[in-house]
Structures are given as C-alpha cells and as structure tokens.
C-alpha cells in the first residue's frame, strides 16, 4: 500500500534518469543559509501518524543530532527527505528551490543528499574499492556506466577516501568480510564519494567500539561546515562529543530543541524517556 502511494504520487515522467543533471525544480540554492526545510510534514500509515506536523530547519554547514524514543518518527523523517515515502501533507525543501516531494530517490541523491541506513548497507560481494567506485559522484546513466573507465584523478579520490575511513589496507577485500564497525565506515565513505551537501546518518556508530565511535565523532565534526549533517543517534556520549544542536522527536513532532544540556534537563523530555 505504502509503496503504491509513493509511486503514484510521482510527477509525469520523473521516473526516468533523463532528468539527472538538470533538475526539475532548480539548482541547489543555499543563499539564505538554510539547507533543509521541513514544514508541517504529516505521514500516516493506516491511520497511525508516524509524522505529525513536523517542522525542522537545518542550516547550511550545521551538524544536528536527532534523538527520540523508538517510534518517534526518526527513520520516517529520513524516508521523506530521501523520497522513499511521500508525505500526506507539508513541504520539504532542499535549499531554497528544490522540492523534495517531487523527486525520486536517485534524483534526490543526485541533487546532493546522501543517506546512511541504520543497518550498514553496502555491496557485500563487491570489493571495498568497488563500493566506493560505484558511489562516486559521476554521470550514473546506463550508457556512461557501460563505457566507464576510471581516470587517475578518480583513483586518487577513492584512495583519499579509503585513507579517511581507514580502510586503505582493505581495498581489494570483499566488503562482506569487513567487521561491523568497518562496514559502517565504508558506508560513510560511500556517502562522502557522492560529495553530498547534506548527509543523513541513521545510527552511524551502532556496533562500533568506543575507540571507533570517538574517531567517527571527530570525522563528523571535521565534515561540518563544508556539509550539513543530520545524525540520528541513541549514544549520548557520542551526541555530546558532536556538540551542536539537538532536536528531540516524540510521536512524530518536535518535542524540544537546544544544546544537549538544555534538552536533557527539559521536564517533558525526561518524562518521554523515563515513562509517565
């Protein structure tokens, strides 16, 4: 049911890859300092409101953490931003001009939004190098893929990313053989290869060792400024390390917003987390 809805809502002809490169609703425009703008987003599944008049604004270059109990709507929010789920009502804009509710998943990826899933989703049969190669920002139409041949520059970029995610020794191993934490890093690396303006990261440090978690926090902090990051996470030590504003979601809307200390002392937030 849900799937059909998302398909039927598509504008005429937008399922073709022919639009990649010239966007339906304009170029990314960050001139007013807002990277992502969600207004009154509502999504309901069989009467249950997964998102209920959600409002959220992410500034260009900002690092924002989203927390909230299970079922608060964090993953549904990401589904809306990346085109997987169509909202029943509300607006979702990327920059000033790009209407996310009118684009398909590949088109949204193409305008500059990268997404990391909760469960690491990589190509297990491909080597680490090939995973990054496939993710690299380039013309992703069929004909170009048939004729594709890596240039020296492109190899350098892959090597750079490999170093950044500390997998340069594993380039030729099948990705399925990596440890859980390494898979998480590989997926982050794939996101970076896409050169997105906005990164959505769903529980990026789940299953990582403490050491890996801290290194990931350092990486994200270094990425902020050039990119906007939205991080969904339960690990409060990690959220603290990231700094930045924290938004608390509850039952599909924003419950509180502020720095971590303010949010943690908010009476309503304490109630939601500790039960009534």
């Amino acid at each position: 049911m849900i799937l059909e809805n998302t398909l039927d809502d598509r504008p005429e002809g937008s399922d073709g890859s022919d639009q990649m490169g010239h966007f339906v609703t304009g170029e990314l425009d960050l001139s007013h300092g807002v990277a992502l703008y969600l207004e009154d987003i509502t999504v309901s599944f069989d009467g249950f409101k997964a998102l209920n008049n959600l409002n959220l604004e992410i500034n260009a270059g900002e690092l924002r953490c989203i927390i909230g109990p299970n079922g608060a709507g964090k993953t549904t929010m990401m589904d809306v931003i990346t085109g997987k789920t169509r909202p029943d009502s509300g607006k979702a804009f990327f920059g000033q001009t790009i209407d996310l509710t009118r684009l398909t998943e590949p088109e949204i990826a193409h305008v500059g939004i990268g997404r990391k899933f909760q469960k690491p989703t990589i190509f297990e049969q491909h080597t680490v190098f090939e995973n990054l190669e496939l993710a690299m920002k380039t013309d992703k139409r069929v004909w170009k893929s048939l004729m594709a041949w890596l240039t020296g520059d492109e190899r350098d970029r892959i090597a750079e990313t490999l170093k950044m995610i500390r997998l340069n020794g594993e380039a030729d191993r099948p990705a399925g053989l990596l440890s859980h934490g390494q898979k998480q890093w590989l997926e982050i690396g794939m996101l970076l290869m896409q050169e997105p303006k906005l990164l959505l990261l769903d529980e990026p440090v789940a299953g990582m060792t403490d050491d890996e978690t801290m290194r990931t926090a350092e990486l994200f902090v270094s990425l902020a400024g050039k990119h906007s990051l939205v991080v969904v996470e339960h690990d409060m030590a990690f959220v603290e390390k990231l700094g930045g504003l924290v938004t608390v979601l509850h039952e599909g809307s924003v419950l509180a917003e502020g720095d971590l200390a303010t949010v943690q002392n908010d009476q309503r937030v304490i109630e939601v987390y500790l039960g009534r």
Partner: protein
Amino acid sequence: MRKPLTVRILSALDSKQWLALGIFLALALIAVPVLHLMVPEESAFHVSTYMITLIGKIMCYALVAVAMDLIWGYGGILSLGHGLFFALGGYAFGMYLMRQIGRDGSYQSDLPDFMVFLDWKELPWFWIGSDHIGWSLFLVVAVPAFVAFVFGYFAFRSRIKGVYFSIITQALTYAAMLLFFRNETGFGGNNGFTDFKRILGFPITSSEMRLVLFGLTAVMLAATLVFSAWLVKSKFGRVLTAIRDAESRVMFIGYNPLWYKLTIWVISAVLCGIAGALYVPLVGIINPSEMSPANSIEIAIWVAVGGRGTLIGPIIGAFVVNLAKSWFTVSFPEYWLFFLGLLFIVVTLMLPQGLVGLWKKLMARKEGAAA
C-alpha cells in the same frame, strides 16, 4: 588513460580463456565439417547428421542459458518466461523459411499451406516483407526486444520483484502460447511452421547447409560469451550485481535501477530471440509448445545446474541436462520429468553454486591437501 573499447573487450577474457574459445571454434568450424564430410560413415570418427543436429540444438540452448544467466545470475531477476523470447525469434525467422517454400507445399500455392487451409486469399499484413531475409533477421531482434521492453518497463517501474515477477513472466509466456495455438492468429496454430525447403534458395537439409548453420551457432555462442564477459566486467555489470544485492543502496547513491534492469532484460531477450532463429532451421520445426511454461522452467534449471553468476556454468548446464535428456527420452521416456525435478531439488539443496561451484570446491580442497 582511457583504453579503447576494443581493447577492453579483448581483455574481458584472459589468455587461457581465449585459448579455450579458439579450440572450441576450431572444433566447430574445422574438425566437425571435416569429420562429417570427409570421413566415411562406417568409421568411428564420422560425425553423423544426428550428432550435428543434436549438438547444434544444444548450442542454441546454451546461448539461451547464458542470456538467462545475465538476468538471473547477475541481475537477480528470475524469469520463467524466457521460452517466449526464444520462440518469438524462432517464429520471426520461421516466417521467412515458410515463404521460401514457395509453390512446393502440398497445395502448390504462393501462400503457406496453413493459410490455404484457412481459406485465406492473401498474406495478412504482419507477413508483409517476410520473404526478405533482411527484414526477417531484423524481426528476430526487434520483436523480442519490443515485447521485453514494454513488459519490462511496466514491471520494473512498478517495482515488481522476486517471485511475483517470476510468476508474471510465466503467465506471459502461457498467454502467448494460447494465442499462438489459435489458427486465426496467423502462425500455423498448433502445428506451427515446418517442412522448410530452402534458405536463400539453397536446400535446407543438405549437409553443407547444416554445417553452415552449425558453424553460425558456434560463432554466435562464442561471440555472446565474449560480449557477456565484457558486460559483467564493466561498471554496468558491477551496478547490476549491486542492484541484485542491495537495490535500495543503489538508488540512494543515485542510480535508477529501472534503466539498468531494463537494459539487461532487453539484451537477454534479444539473445534468446537470436538463439531461436538459429534453432528453427537446424531442427526444422517451430510450434507453440516452445512457449509452454515447462520449457521456460527448464531454462532456469540448466543455469542452476551449471552454476549461476558464472558465464561458463550455464553452458555446461545446458549441455549436461540436454545430453541427459536425449539419453533419457530414448531409454526411459516416462521418467524424464521425474529426473528433471529431482535434479532441480538436489542442485538447489546440495549445490547452490552448481557444477562450477562443485568444481571450485574440489579444486580448493585439493590445493588445501597439497599445502
């Protein structure tokens, strides 16, 4: 440095594989004709007409198996309707062969016999041009491509996957079979096309013509193998296997799976059509039973037995299963389908990688023992 395309295609196979391919072509194009024409029939080395037809037929099947492997082994999409594309290619070329009969049919008419039987006075519109070999060869490619494109576009756009897709393809080939069974459809009803006399004016049953068709099939099989090896080693091939393993990830890094699936689906259908067009003159008949669901399932079994996701596996599978079939159907005809079912179960449970996987495992064990 960009390498030119020809170099990339040449490097799709390594030197050992090129050597094997060369030996195969030498056998098919030189050894078989010599042994058939020059060696007397009493000799043990004589290759009989029966053998040439049998091996030629199996090479056509092997071509279909490679096409099936591209879509199933690499694309992760199981089609249970590939017999349809094979039959469409066969019918497209069969129309030309029917026109080549000329006035030598039993009714001595300009029209094919079955049309006289239906009391038709002229060729229906879709037979126009069928007496030109060029037009027929065009149809061999265009008809399967068109049917596959239209069907695939709607199926893949609606994100129909897995077993649902398989069932719909099965229904598609079954519906086509019922359509072709009707006499009024204009393709000879349940008798289909047979009693062919000539190709380009040359008698179709002569030894020379048989050897030419045999050679063409071998060349086509070899060319398909090289083309497929290049395809699966290109970035396109890597995207395709990525779609098989994690489609949502592929979408979120900016590829539209629709066009990738559709491309490999149409390529696969066209290869089946070409195989069908080579099969019909070699075997001398095409009828709607080629579209029966069981035939399409058998194609999947060849690939599973040989080994999915390897290009040589489906060829081995097609040969092993069909040689077994031609032996079985002579010795124990009533048990063939039981054996086929058993084979499928055993392969699925014990040999998920097929015969090629078994071979690799044995080699690995041998190496392990040596070390």
